[in-house]
């Protein structure tokens, strides 16, 4: 392939960072774009051109990839930008008035004013939040959580410090009986010694003794189900991949946590990074993978630094690399890949395209990832929380594990409580805890207020009413009640919340995050948002009943005919608000 490049050269700074990728392949496109963005804050024509020259990629394709991600800008912007979260939990906690202040003091959101509106930053327990990035020789980030307009204005004017140490919010920290959260907030996340002193790497030792099929048997018997939203049996997934004769096999840890209202994976990675690394190593051993990719969302700088440190320390002590823990022939490496602002890349096949250096568009299934996934090879994709359940299973035994929770949903589960709740944060409870018990644990709605609704499962989930608090939180009970636990979002709305604005944000989110590949989702999410705008604003084209009918029909085609879960679930939350909460009547009156 002959490349025809643009007649534009990179700046010296751009050339230096891009040249580091010399000799590498297409899958380094996203890292190279990050390198330029970290150095100068945007992707110039010269920089993109040079990336194409070095990695041998046609410029039109590289442009297609760069323009897919919201964290990259292809037009000039200042080195520093502050991303202000306007998503669900922040909206409930005053993001709108914060943005109004910023608009009047800094000017409208955009490159020139130095602040941008952002989808969920995954720090919902401290809402409202903002995240500042500053490009330079050493790229800097600063998380402002919770934040105020004054602080954003001050940070926009000053230098951000290098990742603040803001501790993770775990109301249960240090409590007895925790499994997934036992180290979070209780041990030093940088120290491998602390990790080992609290039982770390015992599970990998057990796994190496059991052998791959033994590990798969334990995980299967423990009835572990995926915690990313789809609840697929993990043991079956591993077994299917392990049986594939083609080599190599890959493991992908899906840490692209972007579902609005979800922050459990961030907490695990920031509070117990070694557990993530050990769990990936066990999964790699079981499914015969020689390499694992940890796909981390670009908005999690603190998790990035802690995971990088954990991988380096683990490698030093032979917990990664060749002949791990002295086990002849077992080699495993982990590479972190940073996302760049695209919710869709958390879809299990879009994540492959993103890692391979293509646009993060989902693939058509079949073939399924266990047959043909990353680089066309058999691949296991697991969510962070799913993986960190594995050491629990191996150290406590699958019988003890199935004793936690219910017969249909085993084990402990993390829930992300945010919105109008007294003690927001991640809570670990056994499956089967009722929604009411969970809300009580988090202190319920603030004093003097009344519960209006709970959004379960995030933007792709559904609302339940205050009279449904006796719902046991299990996969099967949620299904029977025609709702979903999704990724564990429990976003609480009280009587002060503006439900109409909240629904408009959900509609806007899907419109923004649709990859655009298939018609039902690309155009359907636009029509859904337009119809919701008419409904909430009480400006129907003819009647509100007609808009409700349109919404239903568009929702059905998105659910039936979209390629992936994004489009298929884009109508769920709005549908449940209209008909389960009764917003349809309210809006039509």
């Amino acid at each position, binding site marked *: *392939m002959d*490349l*025809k490049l*643009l007649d534009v050269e990179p700046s010296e700074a751009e050339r230096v960072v891009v040249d580091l990728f010399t000799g590498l392949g297409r899958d380094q496109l996203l890292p190279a774009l990050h390198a330029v963005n970290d150095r100068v804050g945007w992707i110039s*024509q010269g920089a*993109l051109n040079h990336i194409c020259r070095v990695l041998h990629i*046609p*410029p*039109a*394709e*590289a*442009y*297609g990839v760069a*323009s*897919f991600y*919201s964290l990259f800008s*292809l*037009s000039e912007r200042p080195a520093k930008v502050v991303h202000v979260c306007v998503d669900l939990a922040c909206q409930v906690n005053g993001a709108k008035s914060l943005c109004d202040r910023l608009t009047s003091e800094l000017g409208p959101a955009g490159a020139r004013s130095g602040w941008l509106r952002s*989808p969920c930053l995954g720090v919902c327990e401290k809402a409202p939040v903002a995240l500042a990035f500053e490009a330079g020789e050493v790229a800097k980030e600063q998380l402002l959580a919770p934040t105020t307009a004054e602080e954003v204005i001050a940070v926009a004017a000053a230098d951000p410090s290098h990742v603040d140490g803001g501790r993770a919010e775990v109301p249960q920290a240090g409590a007895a009986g925790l499994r997934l959260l036992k180290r979070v907030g209780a041990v030093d996340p940088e120290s491998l010694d602390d990790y080992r002193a609290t039982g770390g790497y015992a599970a990998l030792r057990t796994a190496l003794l059991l052998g791959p099929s033994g590990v798969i048997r334990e995980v299967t018997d423990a009835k572990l189900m995926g915690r990313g939203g789809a609840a697929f049996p993990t043991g079956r997934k591993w077994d299917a991949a392990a049986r594939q004769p083609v080599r190599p096999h890959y493991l992908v840890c899906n840490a692209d946590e972007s579902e609005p209202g979800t922050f459990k994976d961030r907490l695990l990675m920031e509070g117990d990074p070694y557990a993530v690394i050990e769990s990936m190593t066990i999964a790699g051993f079981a499914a015969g993978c020689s390499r694992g990719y940890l796909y981390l969302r670009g908005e999690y700088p603190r998790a990035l630094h802690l995971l990088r440190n954990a991988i380096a320390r683990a490698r030093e002590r032979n917990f990664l690399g060749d002949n791990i823990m002295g086990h002849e022939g077992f080699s495993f490496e982990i590479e972190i890949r940073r996302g760049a*602002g*695209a919710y869709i890349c958390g879809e299990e096949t879009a994540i492959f395209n993103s890692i391979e250096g293509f*646009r993060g568009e989902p693939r*058509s299934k079949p073939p399924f990832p266990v047959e043909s996934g990353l680089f066309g090879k058999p691949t296991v994709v697991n969510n962070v929380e799913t993986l960190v359940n594995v050491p629990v299973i191996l150290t406590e035994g699958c019988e003890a594990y199935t004793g936690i929770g219910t017969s249909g949903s085993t084990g402990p589960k993390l829930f992300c409580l945010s919105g109008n709740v007294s003690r927001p944060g991640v809570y670990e409870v056994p499956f089967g805890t009722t929604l009411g018990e969970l809300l009580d644990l988090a202190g319920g709605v603030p004093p003097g207020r009344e519960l209006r609704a709970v959004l379960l499962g995030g933007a792709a989930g559904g609302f339940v009413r205050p009279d449904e608090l006796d719902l046991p939180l299990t996969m099967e009970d949620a299904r029977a009640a025609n709702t979903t636990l999704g990724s564990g979002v429990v976003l609480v709305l009280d009587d002060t919340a503006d439900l109409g604005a909240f629904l*408009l944000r959900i509609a*806007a989110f899907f*419109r*923004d*995050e*649709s*990859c*655009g*590949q*298939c*018609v*039902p989702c*690309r*155009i*359907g*999410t*636009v*029509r859904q*948002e*337009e119809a*919701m*705008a*008419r409904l909430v*604003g009480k*400006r129907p*084209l003819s009647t509100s009943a007609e808009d409700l009918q*349109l919404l239903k*029909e*568009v929702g*059905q*085609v998105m*659910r*039936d*005919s*979209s*390629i992936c879960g994004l489009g*298929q679930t884009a109508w769920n939350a709005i549908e449940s608000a209209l008909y389960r909460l009764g917003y349809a009547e309210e809006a039509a009156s």
Partner: protein
Amino acid sequence: MTIVEIGLPKRLVELTLDGESVRVPEGATILDACTAQGKSIPTLCYGDTLKPANACRVCMVEVEGSRTLVPSCSRKVEPGMVVKTASERTNHSRKLVLELLGSATDLSTTPHVDEWMSACGADPSRFGPPAPPSADRDDRHPGEHEEPDGQTAATVRQPNKVDNPLYVRDLGKCIMCYKCVDACGDQWQNTFAISVAGRGFDSRISTEFSTPLPESACVYCGNCIEVCPTGALSFKREHDKREDGTWDEEAQTQTTTICTFCGVGCNLTLHVQDNEIVKVTSPHESTVTHGNLCIKGRFGWQHVQNR
């Protein structure tokens, strides 16, 4: 002489198609099975010379046991499959997909779409009056958009791109079927002049930084235009004749001949109107070209009619 590819014998797979038991060769798609049964399923992003893109979702059918509908153009038949092509669910899906497309895109030059729309009662105007054309579609940032008020339906309408003497790009007609990108890229031409850029409703077919075609890698083979199902990409001559009302397909003859520019032997189909060549294509079933040509075969015919 017609070359018939015989290939290896294939096992037959038995499935149920709209209540009837049918047998088709292993490896066939549901669409192949439908075609063999004389059932017509609408398609837009499907290309007979391209791999399925699965993007337009016009050809969705119901397969028993599947949670969602499936694209018939790419889903391979399996023994015992029970397929419904005209259930309430498939009809609703087809109608809505056509309505959504029609509400956002100018389908006036898309063959058959009017028939399909009237067959399923599609009415794209239900979503409101179309929003006016916008000139900023090349610069939209992913993850950002202006809050709509819902009083108009957003569209992809935009000014034509005319930056060279051979092509016109009317991207207000583009349905994002990926066919031009696939034809330009690794499936045929390996030129990679265009790609999908942006995201969601703001995605578009673009060169790098929307640079004009003459500065891009484009080699003007015209293979993108050959596969475009909507007329978003067209030959300038055809476009101009359509504009001034002198394009008359009924009055055109088609003559297939062999290109004389080199020794490859590409088949050319000359579209002739009023004793003038107005367009050159190549038969998709030609084993030499599979419908593709180069700039010489596609455009190098002016000398024939220098009188």
